[in-house]
């Protein structure tokens, strides 16, 4: 589905779009006019203000640089004012920035109810639905990827489009091949083998799992365990508030109990409560821990930085669901002054050359031709994601349900690691804020 090349359907769409524009005049349901591809657009002398916060050496950074070059080549005379932003600044101040005249024409923004959802509810983002249909982006994005691009009253999953993702991300197991060989541990393919592997490392005096209890990694491990026992409906209940979530139900109880067990058995270090994500990454790179359960965003970094041992990845054994989602979104602020330029830019990022470049640089593109991915390691990364996405296995992230849930989960899991709360007490402590927020939403 996502490996189709564009030429034929695109031309058809273009004529269709031109025709419908001619008939419809102004578009109706919140979308913007001029949301059509093709034709000869004249952007001479105009400037597109574009912000993102991905590192220049990251897969996205490289791909988007190329996209900017392609954009300038396609529309001679256009200027692109690119500003590299800090993640912190955008996250904390987005509503202030987008509500002012300093808003850019297009920017990268986080997906999820608490971020893109909130901004869309506040009317700060342009409704992209008609553009999406006109340019055909919805044909390129699988349904689970679309979930995080569409929001209805601030809740994702349905409704109008407010963002377009270029890449995907998911959580997997990174492992140090050298250490596995050294300690005689076979690479596991089932969950039981995985636990045996953890135990073997432990017996030999090595803490198997690198962890960062002060930030997102610990809660993602917890969520991964929860997903071992969960199904799609559970995820929909948890993330989309479809039904009430029983925090003492089998899935979450299993997850909390297992996590506490793993700490007790020493699979996860007892003193990892205040380690940051970066510390976890450092520990893996310095071969202190042979296993790291975290996201694909580490992939490029490891490729660039790890020179002295061989490493690989595999999906968490036994799970059909894993944490993951579309990557961050391109959003167009409501106050953008150059919306059609923004759409044309987004279109360029969805083109094969940019998408393939993203894949070849260590990222996970949404619409690339797998055959064009040269490095076998990258290929494996992308294929695992596609497999996950095809089986509707992307379960998003545990901190999405409420805007403050990230802090709740960090604090809660830290108590689990330090043993200051029992699994049951921990579940109680994360249940309350969830239920409070849910009732606030009127569900």
């Amino acid at each position, binding site marked *: 589905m996502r490996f189709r090349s564009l030429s034929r359907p695109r031309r058809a769409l273009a004529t269709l779009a031109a025709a419908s524009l001619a008939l419809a005049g102004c578009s109706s349901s919140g979308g913007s006019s001029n949301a059509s591809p093709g034709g000869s657009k004249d952007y001479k002398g105009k400037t597109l203000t574009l912000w993102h*916060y*991905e*590192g*220049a050496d990251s897969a996205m950074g490289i791909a988007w640089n190329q996209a900017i070059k392609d954009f300038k080549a396609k529309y001679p005379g256009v200027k692109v004012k690119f*500003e*590299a*932003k*800090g*993640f*912190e*600044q955008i996250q*904390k*101040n987005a509503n*202030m*920035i987008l509500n*002012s*005249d*300093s808003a850019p024409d297009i920017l990268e923004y*986080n997906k999820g109810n608490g971020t893109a959802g909130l901004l869309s509810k506040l009317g700060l983002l342009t409704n992209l639905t008609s553009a999406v249909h006109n340019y055909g982006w919805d044909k390129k994005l699988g349904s689970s990827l679309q979930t995080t691009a569409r929001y209805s009253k601030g809740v994702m999953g349905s409704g109008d489009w407010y963002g377009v993702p270029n890449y995907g991300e998911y959580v997997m197991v990174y492992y140090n091949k050298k250490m596995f060989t050294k300690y005689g541990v076979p690479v596991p393919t089932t969950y039981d083998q995985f636990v045996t592997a953890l135990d073997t490392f432990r017996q030999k005096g090595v803490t198997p799992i690198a962890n960062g209890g002060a930030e*997102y990694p610990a809660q993602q491990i917890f969520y991964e365990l929860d997903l071992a026992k969960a199904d799609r409906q559970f995820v929909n209940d948890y993330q989309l508030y479809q039904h009430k979530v029983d925090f003492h139900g089998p899935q979450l109880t299993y997850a909390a109990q297992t996590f506490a067990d793993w700490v007790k058995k020493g699979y996860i270090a007892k003193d990892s409560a205040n380690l*940051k*994500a*970066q510390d976890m*990454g*450092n520990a893996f*790179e*310095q071969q202190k821990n042979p296993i790291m359960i975290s*996201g694909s*965003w*580490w992939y490029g*970094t490891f490729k*660039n*930085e*790890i*020179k*002295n041992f061989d490493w690989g990845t595999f999906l968490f054994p036994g799970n059909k669901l894993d944490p993951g989602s579309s990557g961050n979104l391109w959003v167009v602020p409501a106050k953008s002054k150059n919306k059609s330029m923004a759409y044309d830019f987004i279109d360029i990022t969805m083109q094969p050359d940019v998408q393939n470049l993203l894949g070849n640089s260590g990222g996970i593109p949404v619409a690339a031709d797998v055959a064009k991915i040269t490095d076998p390691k990258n290929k494996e990364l992308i294929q695992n994601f596609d497999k996950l996405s095809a089986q509707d296995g992307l379960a998003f992230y545990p901190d999405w349900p409420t805007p403050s849930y990230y802090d709740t989960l960090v604090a809660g899991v830290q108590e689990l690691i330090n043993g200051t709360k029992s699994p049951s007490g921990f579940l109680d402590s994360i249940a309350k804020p969830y239920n409070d927020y849910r009732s606030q939403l009127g569900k």
Partner: protein
Amino acid sequence: MTAVTRPVTGSVAPDSAPPAPAPPSVRRRRRGPMAYVVFGVLVAVMALFLGPLLIVAINSFKSASDFAAHGPLALPHGWHLSTITRFWKRVDFGTKLINSLEISLAVSVLGVVLALLNSYAIGIGRVRGRALFLVFFLMVNVVPQEGLVYPLYYLAKQVNLYDSKIAVIIIFTVIQSAFGTYLLSSVLAEFPTELIEAAEIDGANSWRTLTRIVLPMSWPTLSVMFTFFFIWTWNEFFLPLVFLISNDNQTVPVALAVLQGQHSMDVTATSASALLGVLPALLFFLVFQRTLTRGIAAGALK
């Protein structure tokens, strides 16, 4: 005007001859063994204080894979300038340095001037409601910034000053000068009134008294304030983060934050940037505190 012995002491009789007392360093004492113990302790304390900066420095010269392999506390295996130069280009550090310099200097100068004016009125002029004003200015300096952000944002938007350095300069001038007012008022409250009265008798108005007598004699405190304001404003992160949006306007600490990504942190680049960010403030402090010491040790001031 009559010469006086030393600035702002309590009970020196004004008509004793000014001997221009020797600065302490001239009359050196015997160094007993105790002195060396004390010195040794201080050196150890220095190690504790300088150690972390050293760690920042060595990490600035590591390549990313070196850091990955050996961690933050190991010495670099090979010295790379590339991390620093890459970071410089990536955030256009030159512009950020200039912005930080502009803002910090402006705030320091304006802050000192404003504080001097305020303190003159409170400390020497002894205006009515002195205590109230002191509380007021103390409060202005210490109001938690988080609470002010949204209102200031709206006010700035109204006058089109959102995303501008002027807004940041004005805000910090007010905040820092309030501290200066609080500090200087206390110091000026102890200013020898005989000098003021002598000036009055000589026919000087309040402005001349301020500029000719109070200002020169308050130099130590003013220098300290100037240094503090510069460094504090240089290191301010929160309000610039909110108000300076365009990359052209941003300051050094905000640029540093660029390196803190969503999922991880570019550590060697952070160290490099920390080093670059700290050096100007550090230089400023070192340069300024020498003039500070020199200015005072010179002794008598007219």
